């Protein structure tokens, strides 16, 4: 069974952490993954940097720009991940934009993911219908779970379709926004979390965007399976480097 599905069966709220590959330093990728696993994180999203990350706010965008300056490439990321399965068993998901994958070759990319211990992909600008028609079979051939997004504006009908073609979890964008844009949730968000929970979907939901601390993590996971932290973690890395990752995680899970 895919490591993501295994993890989703555990009877607990899951914490997923996003970081940008090649940031703060080019070769930090493997040790960030190891630190995160040791600190009790459940899932990791490895950001493959893109020059024009449309769905990201300034924090992740700046880390991507820096990572590219540091010399990260698709090939380099796969090299960094080559031996990762000798040290960690945590589910690993690559999150990236579609163009770098397209240039690598979608099938070649998926194959490399499988060879290097990747369990799933999140590609915000690969639309659901294009994925469904053209790429689903390839992803499945290499054992990759494609994580699809929904937002507060997504219609119930479309959510049902997304649920039907998903085989891991659904990435629930907390509010209409790019990453890192807000702090704290209001009733609009909690109502939305509850509405989706009441739909009794096949795939569990994990909330992303706007989660930064213990309080927002607790709020976000009240009606869902887990939550994803990205920009807040990048900010922590920018300020503190990679040595105090466990402190950051302990504060979230406190």
């Amino acid at each position, binding site marked *: 069974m895919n490591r993501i599905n295994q993890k989703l069966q555990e009877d607990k709220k899951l914490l997923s952490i996003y970081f940008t590959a090649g940031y703060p330093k080019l070769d930090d990728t493997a040790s960030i993954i190891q630190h995160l696993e040791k600190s009790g994180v459940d899932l990791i999203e490895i950001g493959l940097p*893109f*020059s*024009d990350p*449309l*769905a990201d*706010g*300034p924090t992740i*965008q700046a880390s991507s*720009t820096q990572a*590219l300056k540091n010399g990260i*490439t*698709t*090939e380099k990321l796969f090299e960094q991940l080559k031996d990762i399965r000798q040290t960690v068993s945590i589910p690993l998901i690559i999150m990236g*934009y*579609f*163009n*770098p*994958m*397209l*240039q*690598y070759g979608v099938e070649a990319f998926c194959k490399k993911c499988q060879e290097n211990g990747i369990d799933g992909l999140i590609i*915000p*600008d*690969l*639309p*659901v219908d*294009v994925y469904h028609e053209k790429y689903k079979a390839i992803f499945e051939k290499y054992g990759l779970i494609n994580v*699809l*997004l*929904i*937002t507060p*504006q*997504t*219609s119930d009908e*479309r959510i049902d379709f997304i649920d039907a073609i998903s085989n891991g979890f659904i990435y629930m*964008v907390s509010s*209409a*926004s*790019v990453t890192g*844009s807000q702090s704290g949730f209001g009733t609009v968000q909690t109502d939305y979390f509850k509405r989706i929970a009441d739909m009794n979907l096949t795939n569990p939901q994990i909330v992303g965007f706007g989660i930064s601390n213990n309080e927002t993590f607790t709020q976000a996971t009240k009606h869902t399976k887990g939550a994803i932290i990205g920009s807040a973690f990048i900010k922590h890395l920018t300020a503190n480097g990679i040595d105090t990752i466990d402190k950051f995680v302990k504060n979230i899970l406190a």
Partner: protein
Amino acid sequence: MNYKADQKGYYGVFGGAYIPEMLYPNVEELRQNYLKIMAEPSFQKEFQELLKDYVGRPSPLYFAKRLSEKYTTKIYLKREDLNHTGAHKINNTIGQILMAKRLGKSRIIAETGAGQHGVATATVCALMGLECIVYMGEIDIARQAPNVARMKMLGATVVPALSGSRTLKDATNEAIRDWINNPVDTYYIIGSVVGPHPYPDMVARFQAIISEEIKWQLKEKEGRENPDVIIACVGGGSNAAGAYYHYLNNDEVQLIAVEAAGLGIDSGESAATSVLGKEGIIHGSKTLLMQTEDGQITEPYSISAGLDYPGVGPLHAHLHATKRAEFVSVTDAEAMKAGLELCELEGIIPAIESAHALAVFEKQTFKPNEVIVLNLSGRGDKDLNTYIDYFKL
């Protein structure tokens, strides 16, 4: 051959809507409604009246006698430079502001490179009393200062794009982010035939007025609707799309698309996408774009802010792939020389974008009896600082 977008917005293999789920409801709302709304008689009436009384259409088709003599052929200039706000961009913003109103949107966002589209958007927002936010690269803000001032006078908020190359591509990213953050009340007026479906098709349809007029104007002047050649510059490709539109399926009419070569194709400082680009995805569309081997979008360069874009619209990628249009690249120096020449021969100061199209006459020869229509997409007022610096005026 079919050169119109299909149901899903593909021109051959190019086009589509490669957008994050966050944008789906907005883009889908537009996709489902744009053709219906454009076909409404009340929409058409309002659109046509504004084009006539507010924009000043039809724009003249002017026989450029001295230019024709110099190049021993027959050159007509389609005078989009005479439109209100000084370029073809207003044809599209009039259309889209009416679209936004019919969709019940109250807040308008736009990206701009040269500032022409920003000014054209700020103008129609003032006209309709709608809030207007324009994203513009920090570099472009500096090199197109008069247009920044115009947008401010027209009541728009100009927000600098500080990321990446700080030009048109980055302004477009920021506008898309704004749209993601404001999915309900906001309408995004894209300034060219780029972006996710239905934008390329919708913008081409609004700009199609250019070739619609060329047909009857040329009939009056030459007794025939078809020129032998149409020449237009291509940034994203909207003025070219408008000038070609009604001739796309007419193979007798040769189409020439002029891209900015910047300091030269091989200089590393260029924006000639058809030569330097490969198939990829930019701003929600599969098209030709300039990128690294790794799929990172590269930073283009041209002296002309309006052509300084690393992609072209999917229609143009298709015209290139099918060889329906011939793509020519023109350097900064060639364009500036051609711009000055038009001033001296015809008393018309062209936009530097349009000057790229004019430079074709030095690079290709046409027969004396051939009828050439060159789309003069804009006037050069906004470029005076660049002309002054370049020619030490």
